[in-house]
C-alpha cells in the first residue's frame, strides 16, 4: 500500500522525505508477502468451487458417483457433446441469447437520449424521475413475477422472447440510464456548445461527436445489461414454458428418472460462465463502476 505511494514523491520533495526511502524499500521487501498470502488464499477460495464444476463437467457420471477424484482420470468431452447436440439443451442457450440481445438493444436505445437529458438539462420532475428509475432497479423480481405473468398472458406475449426482453427492461433500463449518465457527466458541456455553434443539429452532434466520446460508457452499459439479463432466473422462468425457455430454467429442471445427470449439469453450468469470462478482461476496470450504477 504505502510502499508504492512513496516512490514518486521522494524525487519531488527534498529533505525530510529522503530518509524514509530506505525504510520504504525495507517495507517493500517485507509487506507484500502478507498481501500475497491473503490474495492467494482469497483467490483459491473463489476458484476452487468453479474448478470443481469444471472438473465434474469433464468426468463421466460413473466416475463422479463412484470414485472421488481431484482431477478427471479419464477425460471426456461427452457431457459437452450432449449439450451441443441435444436440442432440448442447446435451444436453451439460443433462447437466452435472443432475449438477452433484444433486451440490451432496447435498453440502450431508450437509455441513451434519456441519460443525455439527465446529464445536461434540468426539467420539471427530473430528480423524481431519476429516483423512480432507481427504485425499479432495486425492486425485487419476486414482486413482479405474478403481475408480469398475467400482463404478458393477457396481451398474448406469454412464452415469447420479447416478453422476457421487455420484463428485464424493468431493471436494465434504469441501470443503463444511471451508468450512461455517470459517463456523460464526465464530458464537458463546452463540447456540446461548440458543436451547436458550428452548426451541428442535435441528432448529427449526438451520433458523430458525442457517441464516440462516451464509447466506453456505452460498452460498459451494454455489458451490464447483457449480464443482468443473462443471470436472471425468476422472471425468465415465469414467463416461458417451451418456445422461449432459457438455459437457466432448463438447468433447474434436470432431474430425470435415474436422478440428476451431474456431468451434463456441470457442463451446462460451465457453458453459461463462458460469455462473461470472454469479455471480463476488457471491462475489468469498470466492474465496480457498473455495479455502483456509474457512481464510483
Amino acid at each position, binding site marked *: 500500500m504505502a510502499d508504492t*505511494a512513496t516512490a514518486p514523491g521522494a524525487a519531488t520533495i527534498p529533505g525530510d522525505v529522503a530518509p524514509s526511502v530506505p525504510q520504504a524499500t525495507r517495507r517493500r521487501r517485507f509487506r507484500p508477502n502478507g498481501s500475497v498470502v491473503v490474495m492467494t488464499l482469497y483467490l483459491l477460495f473463489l476458484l476452487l468451487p468453479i474448478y470443481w464444476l469444471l472438473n465434474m463437467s469433464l468426468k463421466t457420471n460413473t466416475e463422479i458417483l463412484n470414485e472421488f477424484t481431484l482431477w478427471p482420470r479419464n477425460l471426456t468431452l461427452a457431457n459437452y457433446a450432449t449439450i451441443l447436440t441435444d436440442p432440448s439443451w442447446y435451444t436453451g442457450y439460443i433462447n437466452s441469447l435472443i432475449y438477452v440481445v433484444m433486451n440490451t438493444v432496447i435498453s440502450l436505445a431508450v437509455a441513451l437520449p434519456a441519460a443525455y437529458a439527465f446529464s445536461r438539462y434540468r426539467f420539471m420532475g427530473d430528480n423524481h424521475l431519476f429516483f423512480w428509475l432507481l427504485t425499479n432497479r432495486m425492486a425485487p423480481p*419476486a414482486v413482479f413475477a405474478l403481475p408480469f405473468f398475467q400482463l404478458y398472458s393477457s396481451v398474448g406475449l406469454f412464452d415469447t422472447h420479447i416478453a422476457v426482453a421487455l420484463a428485464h427492461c424493468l431493471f436494465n433500463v434504469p441501470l443503463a440510464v444511471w451508468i450512461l449518465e455517470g459517463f456523460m457527466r464526465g464530458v464537458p458541456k463546452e463540447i456540446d456548445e461548440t458543436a451547436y455553434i458550428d452548426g451541428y443539429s442535435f441528432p448529427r452532434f449526438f451520433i458523430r461527436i458525442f457517441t464516440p466520446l462516451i464509447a466506453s460508457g456505452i460498452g460498459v452499459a451494454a455489458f451490464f445489461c447483457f449480464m443482468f439479463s443473462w443471470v436472471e432466473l425468476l422472471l425468465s422462468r415465469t414467463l416461458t414454458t417451451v418456445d422461449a425457455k432459457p438455459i437457466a430454467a432448463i438447468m433447474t429442471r434436470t432431474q430425470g428418472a435415474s436422478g440428476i445427470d451431474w456431468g451434463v449439469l456441470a457442463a451446462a453450468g460451465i457453458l453459461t460462465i463462458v460469455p462473461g469470462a470472454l469479455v471480463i478482461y476488457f471491462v475489468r476496470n469498470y466492474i465496480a463502476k457498473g455495479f455502483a450504477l456509474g457512481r464510483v
Partner: protein
Amino acid sequence: MDKTINQKAWFLVLPVLLLVAFSAVIPLMTVVNYSVQDTFGNNQFFWAGLEWFDEMLHSDRMWNALGRQVMFSAIILAIEIPLGIFIALNMPKSGFWSSLCLVLMSLPLLIPWNVVGTIWQIFGRVDIGLLGHTLDALGIPYNYTQNTVAAWITIVVMDVWHWTSLVALLAFAGLKSIPDAYYQAAKIDQASRWAIFRYIELPKMAGVLMIAILLRFMDSFMIYTEPFVVTGGGPGNATTLLSIDLVKMALGQFDLGPAAAFSIMYYLVILLVSWVFFTVMTNLDKKGS
C-alpha cells in the same frame, strides 16, 4: 456542472418513461388492485379493503420470513464489508498482478445466479462435492439438506463467495483515488499503519463503502435464485427468505390477495432504502463537484 433548464428534455426521456411505465406501473397497479380485493374464482372480485394487509401483518409466516431475511442480510453484511475492505487493502496496486486479481475476482460476479446455486449445491454434497467430502472425511457432520445450521452456513458462505469481490472492487476503486501526497504526509508524521487506515483510507473510502453497503443490502434483501437452487427454502422453512416465500405464495398457491399485500409491504421497504441510497448518491455528487 451547471445544467440549463430546458423542458424539451422531456422528449428525450419519454421513451424510457413509457417503457418503464409499461413494465413497472401496470404490474404494480395490478398488485395494488389484488391487495384490496377478494375473489372466489370466475374473475369476480369483491372489495376487501385492508383485510389482507391486516391478515399479513398478523401472520407468523410473513414475520418469520422477514426475520430470517433480516438475519441473512445482517450476517452477510457483517462478513462481506470488513472482508472486502481487507482484501482491497491487500490487492496489488498496478501492473500485471493487479489486472489478474481484478479479472479473477470479477469472475463470481458474472456467473448466472442459478449456476452459483448449482456450484454450491454440488460443492457441498457429501458424496460428490469437494467441500462436503472433505468435511465428512474430517469427521465433521455436514448435511445442508437436513441440518438447519449447515444449510445456513452454506447459503451464507455462498453469498460471501459470490459478492465479497464486489465490495472489494468498490473499496479498491476508493483506495486508488487517494493521492500519494496523503501517504507522504502520513509518513512524515510517522503515522502507524492503523492510523493511516483510520484517518486517511477509511474516510476516503466512506462514499464507496456506503454504496457497497446499500447495494449489498438491497440485493441480499431480494435474493431468490441462489438459496432456491441450493436448499429450495428448506430444511422445513429454515432458509425460506422473503422472495422465496412470496413466490411460493403467489405462483405456487395463487393466493392473490395475501401475496399482493405482502408484495406491497415488501416494496415499501425497498422504496425506503432506495431513498436512502439516492440521498447518499446525490450528496456524494455534491461533494465531488
